């Protein structure tokens, strides 16, 4: 489903990623863990086209998306969230989700000639919000949301975008325990639904409960890969995490 082959990226002197390869199987959850600065976010950026890679290839359902622009990668089925949420602050919560649902049907002329959101589209947007319990905030502006609500909304927005692969960058980070539980339960539900997910997360307990496979990055290299229990027993991982 998602195949990464020899991804490399340098920022000046920093080798953010060096020759990283692994696969994410269809319908599975792969967790990407590693210390700060290991290159986890950089990896999601390369896959989603946000950052241009130096070398390597990224296959999404067999199509190489390496070197494509973010909007092209999105249309090829990659949806993502960001480590700190990137919402459209002056738009409403509902509009943020509608933007994800309304792929490609927003031509200037159609709008100019009076096309408005169909009832069906609005219903889908509302049910996307229901999923993260933000229905009562539908008409609030995003800039008025709390951090936890932003995280939830960004997740709902990423889900609303038609996709085959979901990339989540630390969905649980920085939110209070209540929201944390809420987000964790959404992610677990996604797994049950058969979503294909690549997830960056620090919380090992959560990762063990949700991931089929774990990939451990350190200084831009894969130092371990396997099931959660295999990885937890790995010496190098213990060192990287304790040291």
């Amino acid at each position, binding site marked *: 489903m998602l195949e990464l082959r020899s991804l490399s990226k340098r920022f000046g002197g920093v080798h953010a990623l060096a020759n990283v390869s692994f696969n994410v199987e269809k319908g599975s959850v792969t967790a990407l863990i590693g210390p700060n600065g290991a290159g986890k976010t950089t990896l999601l950026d390369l896959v989603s086209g946000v950052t241009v890679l130096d070398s390597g290839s990224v296959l999404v359902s067999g199509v190489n998306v390496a070197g494509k622009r973010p909007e092209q990668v*999105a249309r090829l089925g990659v949806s993502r969230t960001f480590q700190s949420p990137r919402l*459209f602050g002056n738009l409403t919560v509902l509009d943020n989700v509608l*933007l*994800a649902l309304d792929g490609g049907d*927003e031509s200037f002329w*159609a*709008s*100019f000639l009076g096309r408005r959101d169909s009832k069906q589209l609005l219903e889908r947007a509302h049910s996307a919000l229901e999923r993260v319990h933000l229905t009562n905030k539908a008409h609030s502006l995003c800039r008025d949301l709390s951090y936890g609500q932003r995280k939830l909304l960004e997740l709902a927005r990423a889900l609303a975008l038609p996709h085959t692969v979901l990339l989540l960058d630390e969905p649980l980070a920085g939110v209070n325990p209540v929201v944390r539980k809420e987000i964790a339960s959404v992610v677990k539900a996604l797994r049950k639904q058969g979503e294909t997910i690549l997830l960056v997360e620090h919380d090992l307990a959560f990762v063990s409960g949700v991931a089929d496979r774990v990939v451990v990055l350190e200084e831009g290299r894969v130092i371990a890969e396997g099931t959660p229990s295999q990885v937890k027993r790995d010496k190098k991982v213990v060192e990287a995490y304790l040291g």
Partner: protein
Amino acid sequence: MIEAYLAHLLVLVCIYIVLAVSLQLSIGFTGLFNLGHIGFYAVGAYASALLALSGQPFWLCFLAAGVFAGLTGWLLSLPTGKLKGDYLALATLGFSFLVYAVALNWNDLTRGALGLPGIPKPELFGFAFSDTYSFLALAAVVAIASYLIVQRIASSPFGRVLGSVRDDELAARTLGKNAARTKSIALASSAFLAGLAGSLYAYYITFIDPFSFTLLELVPVLAIVVIGGLASLEGTILAAFLVVLLPEPLRFIGFPSSVIGPARQIIFALLLLAVLLYRPKGIGGKVELD
């Protein structure tokens, strides 16, 4: 007499409404820091005037003004597509200056500093808009139409895409939005309307020269946008009345016209300062840009 003077001021209000609501389309709704609006206005005015002087009918000159300015906006958006904020502001400012320089120096086409006199009054279906009152009716129709057009675009699904590009271009792209194309369309439509304003102006004054399109002309238009509030069309209309009408009493106090020009600029500056200090979002501002 006083009625004719008032009608004259209202014609100016209408022209400024067209300029300001179209500038809102790029600055307020799309977040494009477009300071080239006077350039588009000039392109429209010259296109319209040259065609009118060559005997073309009003409707053609008027539409051509929009189309020429819109094309210019589209072209300008191509190399500047990647520019943001201050850099885009500088590039569009440079463009305005370029248009001014061309108008001043391309003597064969524009007659340079001599300008283009004798632009005929507009005629539509055999009706000539030859006095100030009938022209006011025409200008009001164009102003209302511009307002409705921008309102329609802004409140549509496409307007939502404009807002997403304004608030976070990268996030919009990761949702599959073609940000570059979106910005091109926004700048081109904004320029189209500015071109129509230019045509109105040329037909109204019946004479244009490069000095009507200096960068100073941008000051009142920007003042209207800031005072009205970003992305607020109602605020913009109110502000257009304020900015055009507020300096007028100066004339009656008996200031010489050499003082009135600079005094107007001072009034705009004070108005702007007051808004920025006491009401940073303007009359009805809806968006916060960072």
